[in-house]
């Protein structure tokens, strides 16, 4: 799923490891999200949205609309 996670992360000067710790997931999970190898669960998508204080649809592109 296309997303702006890498831009949001680097905008804050965070490493994948640091973002993973903030979200409670592994560095591999952050990398998989950024490279579109993993579609997040609704729970993880909302955690990411809350962390960056943005709506989910602004971070993840809706593939159905």
């Amino acid at each position: 799923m296309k997303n702006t996670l890498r831009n949001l992360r680097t905008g804050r000067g965070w490493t994948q490891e640091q973002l993973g710790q903030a979200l409670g997931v592994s560095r591999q999970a952050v990398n998989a999200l950024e490279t579109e190898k993993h579609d997040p669960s609704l729970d993880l998508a909302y955690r990411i949205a809350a962390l960056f204080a943005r709506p989910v649809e602004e971070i993840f592109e809706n593939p159905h609309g």
Partner: protein
Amino acid sequence: MAFWNTMDPAQKRYVIRTNLFMLGYVAVNIAAIAGAFDPIVGSRAGIVLGLAVAAPIAGQLWATLALMNESDEFVRMLNAKRFILASGLAMTLFSAWGFAESYGDAPHAPGWLIYPLFWGLFGLVSPFLKSSR
């Protein structure tokens, strides 16, 4: 030690559990190879020995499933895909070999081979499965 420090708690628990179970597996096998159980080999008590040797395998599989349960959603999904694919391939190959024994003249393969076969296949398929989809 540096590698150990990069692992998350779930991975550390997995390594500890795996080593403990494999220690038991290796210890019983070495004792059996050394002849410690020779008096019961071939008897009914030998069946208990067979179960005792196999018990750590069940433990190690539990450790793998526990790792999946304790991991984040991406790692869980990735390992589940690898586990399912490796299991399926191991069952298919071993069943095919069994039929080749029954209907052809393939040499006998002992049943315990399916466990190392499964892990060998797990290692083989892992580099090709990098997406959770």
